[in-house]
């Protein structure tokens, strides 16, 4: 119940009591606790290194001659070879920038779609009274957990009949219809934390619901909208299943589909170039992680709870 606070209170971060020393330690055990703490840090650092190592190895491998990639597990190298980036960039039918742009286009459409459609629905669920509200709300919650596989075949048939296969419409239009119900829920939670007095005052002044939504709620919801935008970005950028199904023309390929065809075409030869393009494909996610971490952590903490 309380996690909502993390997201509804602007400026408060999910920062589990950092800096507060644990428990009460009697004077005599201070040496022991210092040893324990050192061991703990050593263990954590080791684990962090092991986890990050494959990523670092991938970065180093992308600037290392092919002959060295699998012979040296270490991260140091005498010779650098940046040519993998140029060969990889041009290895497929179109330059890699095409795929980045294609993915970017789908991400942009999905983000805009989710922001509009989910915030509209969330306002209704959080602030309006209407017939069958509980049923609608339950339906919304259940669809969060629905596997996409039950829908994919008829969706494919539907979109094929509309002539939408090999366009980005099957990937973008559903977002304008709020099919990512998770974000509706996230925003409902957020709106519930906004004092009702605000919109009641506006109602008394004669403002319509649409005005309250667009001029009071949306500005106050910026943190929830940011979380939605960032998660939509990452999930759409990484999405492979539906892009593989709906995009089969090479010049429409998105980044994940292009990378996959890269494995096929290069077979087992140019690993450096494959690594280089893999890294290029991860850079946007990494940037979002760097600059949007606050919203990511808030969002993910809000999804949990009782």
């Amino acid at each position, binding site marked *: 119940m309380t996690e909502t606070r993390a997201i509804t209170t602007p400026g408060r971060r999910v920062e589990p009591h950092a800096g507060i020393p644990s428990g009460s330690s009697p004077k005599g055990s201070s040496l022991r606790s210092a040893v324990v703490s050192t061991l703990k840090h050593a263990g954590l650092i080791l684990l962090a290194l092991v986890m990050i190592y494959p990523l670092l190895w991938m970065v180093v491998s992308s600037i290392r001659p092919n002959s060295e990639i699998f012979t040296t597990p270490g991260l140091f190298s005498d010779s650098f070879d940046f040519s993998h980036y140029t060969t990889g960039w041009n290895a497929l039918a179109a330059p890699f920038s095409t795929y980045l742009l294609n993915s970017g286009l789908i991400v942009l459409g999905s983000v805009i779609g989710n922001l509009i459609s989910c915030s509209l629905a969330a*306002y209704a669920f959080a602030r*309006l009274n209407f017939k069958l509200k509980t049923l609608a709300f339950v339906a919304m919650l259940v669809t969060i957990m*629905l596997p996409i596989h039950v829908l994919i075949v008829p969706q*494919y048939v539907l979109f094929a009949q509309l002539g939408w296969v090999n366009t980005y419409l099957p990937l973008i239009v*559903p977002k304008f219809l709020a099919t990512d119900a998770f974000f509706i829920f996230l925003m409902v939670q957020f709106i519930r934390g906004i004092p009702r007095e605000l919109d009641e005052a506006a109602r008394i002044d004669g403002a319509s*619901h649409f005005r309250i939504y667009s001029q009071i709620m949306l500005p106050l919801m910026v943190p929830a909208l940011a979380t939605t935008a960032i998660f939509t970005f990452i999930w759409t950028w990484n999405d492979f299943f539906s892009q593989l199904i709906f995009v089969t023309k090479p010049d429409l390929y998105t980044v994940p589909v292009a990378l996959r065809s890269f494995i096929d075409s290069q077979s087992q030869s140019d690993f450096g170039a494959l690594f280089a393009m893999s890294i290029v494909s991860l850079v946007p996610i990494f940037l979002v992680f760097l600059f949007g971490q606050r919203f990511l952590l808030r969002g993910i903490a809000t999804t949990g709870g*009782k």
Partner: protein
Amino acid sequence: MSALGELRTITHKRGPESAASKRARTKDNKVAAFFLAPWLLGLLGITIGPMLISLYLAFTNYNLLQAPKFTGLANIQRMLGDERLAHSLQATFTYVIVSVPLQLGTALALAVLLDRGLRALPLYRSVFYLPSLLGSSVAVAVLWRLVFGGEGLVNAFLAVFGIEGAAWISSPDTALSTLILLHMWTFGAPMVIFLAGLRQIPREYYEASSTDGATKWRQFRSITLPLLSPIIFFNLVLGLIGSFQTFTQAFIVSNGSGGPADSTLFFSLYLYQEGFSSFRMGYASALAWLLLIIIGIFTSLNFWASKYWVFYDD
């Protein structure tokens, strides 16, 4: 409150707001229709409609070119004799049952370890969280292929110590384990949820119990676990639902085949092969419904079992 908590409140008690709002219930119907129009259209046109159609297709023979032909229970009969389906179920169940508890266990252990006032917490948290953002990407699956390949990073490391590695990815005995490891690698997301949950446990509980002489382990069992149980439940349900649907990692690592020897033929991968490589759309729909039923059973079992171990303080 999580989506699950919300569902529980609605189904176990009454709606979250009943008496007070009942008077005004029919007031905003028209406005609500406007706000809900996109969602409703999506729910009917892109979710419920397709679900019903796929239920029908499950009893047909359909290859996209000719109209679906009703074949009664033929698809179900086919399932019963489908050896690849059996392999697929085995791979999927093994993956789900092993990787979900391992991932959650790691997440919980790390969350508890990080919770107790570490100054470098934000740094650790970021480093542990990053993989869960990358884990479902094609790039990381490619990386995994090369880390565990016959001449990959792991074997290169082992060679330094004079150990001859195995063909991790191309051997049916180990291929699935590499995918389980990949799932464990993404423990950061549930860890962050656990950390947020731990933060809500009042410090006084621990202080009072340590004055009474409780050990750390006892505190963990008697305070942390019960108070965190709703969050463990949430992570468990979502973890199961999610890992039943794993696709990208198996597809990339096995190059779309689900091999070697069907050992990584996850359910969604088999469904993809049947539906979108062999164009047996009717059979693929039947498989999709089987997946839905399996996930439904697992989720209900979870809800049922939660009565015995999940502690709600309301």
